[in-house]
């Protein structure tokens, strides 16, 4: 009997805000232990929470981007449980009225080849709610210490329907979700910094059936590839349990990405009773249409929508779009340069071959830095001159580098690199005509179908030009002239 996996993901995303969810202390990462605290964060006697509206804005924007229904009222509940990293021993969260319901995440499955677009699917969401993060426990030989810097950071829990059916789909879902969150500026989603964390609910069922099997919750999947590996491992484990005649036990398991092994953390019997109730310290907040409209205006085009538009409008290859689109700043830069130059293909190639190189080797520190050093207008000027043949391919990288390191205009760089002495079209044409006339045999060979024969003319032209001709342009001019001439 073959089995089908049913997977639902619970993704925690730290929301990017200046201050914490319920206090004015900065929400930041990598600061000295316990410096991002205040009476509210530490739950000192008498401290009270006050909602950070910017965090609610972010959650609503995330919901709007994902097509969720936004609750008319933002209501807060307390989730009660004791743990040393939780200063109040309750977490302020949203229980029965999450800020967002429904919606979906569009995902792309791996294509047949790297340069072929894969199948697209929409994974429906159950809900998104806002809550606050907890502190961090650090264990030492002599005991444990707690850093409360992270405590109170706004956190969004995004819960999918049990609608994923493989580790690859889960991987694609997380990748797409992460891209959207980064696109919207909702979160930086750096998994190493714990800004995106994932738990998976996994069950199996006989292929072709629709019921849900007993689920196992997999925790601590702290990188996207661990998510894929952990889920694949768990599906295999469940199938082998069933194959041996066993039954799946409802439990929470911990997956260790380093060793690829999972172990049981707790069974259903030990499940918490969180004693949720409405937080009496926080008043419900009305979210009216005007508020939503203001936020909707701030939502960017979704990555896959942009990719379809790029393919359609700019006619650039899928492989280029799949590099440009996931990075919002990079794709914005592309659009500006392509728009100004009217040369999308050349722009795309140049960004991928040269600009990404600048970013990779540290010549520019960020897209913002690239924009400062190489404004779209200058980049477009460069691209136009490339297209017009004023800059040969061999010189393109050098001119780009010069544009980056000096404030000089494109023409000045062309002149400085001696490229301005390039032969004009008329001069080039004359050399070509001379070369063809001087080699009647090659001409005959070419006309009889021997394409290689063109190399003979090229050699003559390049010798005559003494470096003032671009080989590609010579090739183009020769073919044009040869085409115009009769075969005899």
């Amino acid at each position, binding site marked *: 009997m073959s089995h089908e996996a049913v997977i639902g993901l619970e993704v925690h995303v730290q929301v990017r805000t200046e201050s914490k969810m319920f206090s004015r202390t900065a929400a930041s990462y990598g600061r000295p232990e316990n410096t991002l605290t205040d009476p509210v964060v530490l739950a000192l006697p*008498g401290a*009270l*929470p006050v909602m950070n509206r910017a965090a609610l804005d972010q959650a609503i924007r995330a919901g709007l981007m994902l097509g969720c229904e936004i609750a008319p009222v933002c209501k807060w509940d307390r989730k*009660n449980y004791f743990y040393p990293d939780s200063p*109040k021993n309750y977490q302020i969260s949203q229980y029965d009225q999450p800020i967002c319901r429904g919606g979906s995440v569009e995902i792309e499955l791996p294509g047949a080849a790297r340069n072929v677009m894969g199948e697209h699917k929409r994974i429906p969401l159950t809900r998104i709610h806002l809550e606050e993060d907890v502190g961090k426990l650090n264990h030492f030989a002599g005991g444990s210490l707690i850093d409360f810097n992270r405590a109170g950071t706004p956190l969004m829990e995004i819960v999918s329907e049990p609608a994923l059916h493989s580790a690859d789909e889960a991987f694609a879902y997380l990748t797409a979700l992460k891209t959207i969150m980064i696109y919207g500026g909702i979160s930086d989603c750096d998994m190493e910094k714990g800004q995106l964390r994932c738990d998976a609910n996994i069950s199996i069922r006989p292929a072709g059936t629709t019921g849900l099997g007993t689920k196992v919750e997999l925790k601590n999947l702290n990188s996207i590839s661990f998510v894929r590996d952990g889920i694949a491992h768990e599906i295999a484990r469940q199938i082998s349990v069933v194959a041996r005649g066993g039954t799946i036990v409802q439990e929470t398991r911990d997956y260790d990405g380093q060793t690829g092994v999972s172990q049981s953390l707790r069974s259903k019997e030990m499940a918490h009773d969180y*004693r949720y109730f409405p937080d*009496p310290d926080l008043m419900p907040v009305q979210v009216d249409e005007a508020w939503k409209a203001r936020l909707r205006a701030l939502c960017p085009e979704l990555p896959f929508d942009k990719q379809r538009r790029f393919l359609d409008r700019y006619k650039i290859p899928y492989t280029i779009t799949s590099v440009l689109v996931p990075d919002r700043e990079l794709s914005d830069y592309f659009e500006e340069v392509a728009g100004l130059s009217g040369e999308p293909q050349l722009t795309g190639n140049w960004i991928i071959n040269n600009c990404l190189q600048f970013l990779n080797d540290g010549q520019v520190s960020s897209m913002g830095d690239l924009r400062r050093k190489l404004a779209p207008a200058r980049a477009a000027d460069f691209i136009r001159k490339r297209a017009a043949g004023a800059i040969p391919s061999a010189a393109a990288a050098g001119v780009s580098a010069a544009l980056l390191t000096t404030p000089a205009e494109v023409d000045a760089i062309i002149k400085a690199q001696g490229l301005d002495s390039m032969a004009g079209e008329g001069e080039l044409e004359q050399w070509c005509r001379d070369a063809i006339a001087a080699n009647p045999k090659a001409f005959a060979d070419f006309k009889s179908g021997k394409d290689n024969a063109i190399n003979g003319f090229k050699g003559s032209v390049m010798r005559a030009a003494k470096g003032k001709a671009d080989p590609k342009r010579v090739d183009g001019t020769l073919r044009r002239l040869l085409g115009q001439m009769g075969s005899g």
Partner: protein
Amino acid sequence: MSSELHYQPIGLLAGQLEARAISSVELMQDVVARTRRVDGRVQAFNSYDEADALAQARASDARRAEGRARGLLDGIPVGLKDVIAVAGQPLTASSRMLANYVSPYDSTVTRKLKEAGAICWGRLNLDEFAMGSSTENSAFKSTCNPWDLARVPGGSSGGSAAAVAAGEAVGALGSDTGGSIRQPAALCGVVGLKPTYGLVSRYGLIAFASSLDQIGPFARTVGDAAALLGAIAGHDPLDSTSFRTEIPDYRGELAKPRGRWKLGIPREYFGEGLDPEVGAAVEAAIGHYRGLGCEIRSVSLPHTKFAVGAYYIIATAECSSNLARYDGIRYGHRSPEATDATDIYFKSRAEGFGDEVKRRIILGTYVLSSGYYDAYYLRAQKVRTLIRRDFLEAYREVDAILTPTSPTPAFRKGEKTADPLAMYLNDIYTIGVNLAGLPGISIPCGFTRAGLPIGLQVIGRPFQEADLLAVAHAYERDHDWHARHPELE
């Protein structure tokens, strides 16, 4: 310099300070001396910091000398219930759990008192975490009623009420969750005001039940209570439940001529369990209002009988969660016996909390548990809505409601400690006001034959404290109960 500065009302003291007849230091020294003489018997304070209080008094005198006095309260010593945070001072909630805790920050009311120039004076005893009606649940000491030291001062703000009654503070702040300001005020013969929920910020008040807690003043006169309320009221961005509303000059408003009020007498508040002497004093007060030309009407608050039940579900549910932070991890008592995190919780909380606190945490945990939430917490919230509706319905006919504050005068220490339910019934006349979020004031309206004070409760419309104070003032003006003081020296 008057020999008994500590028993003079704020208005009179402010006049003398302004005229330089006395200095704030002299006033503070008099209050300190009085406290030293009587607090050994009254036991109102958990602690006090004389040097800090005198330094505040000197600062007040210096301001005044430079012509920068901040008004009526500048230089007036105001005691604080030991659940209200003052930076650098102990904050114990009268619990072993916080026996050695010092607050690093000021509550909003503390900040406002300081801005008004008042002297924050001492830490006043209470029932542990404000849970109780006799101040016998304090982990440190049992405060005595200044009128009869063998009797309780009421609670939970028993220390605040006793200190004002005994002349150990000119005014004080307390907190009221189910009657914890009004009941001890009644039992100690002083004025105690619980403002409308949301009028005064709760930031820096140790929470018992967040949706019911409200800070309010104790004073010897309605005018003093009005002055203190004016200083502490107002919207606070640090408390999401605080309300944006204009704060009138409450004390100034008292002088304005008022019309004849329609006053409601709820029949449900005059039934079984009401001490006959208390009932007679309250009837006499009602008669006085009638004599002033007020229209006295009988009103009904039909859901009153459900108030105590609903209260003990909502208050305990909230406290079970609010007190979870006292876990021995970041501050407060940590059991020296504990070996791991779970052990720290169990042992520290077992050692740190007293019986009444534990009783309420257990009850609150139970009513919030999976499967019981709808039957208890949700239903109690519905009852709460009905109780509020009862009051608002009554306010269509009347301007204020008159009731006894407490069914009995001060009872003997130990009389009710073995019977929590009997203790809970002390609050039957005050609890509804908290559930409905309304303002209520207790003012002295007589004494029993044994010489124990009796309190009249006046309940007002939401955020209409000026009217409420005016009604109370109209009675006080014609009586001198507030001018009597207990024999302590």
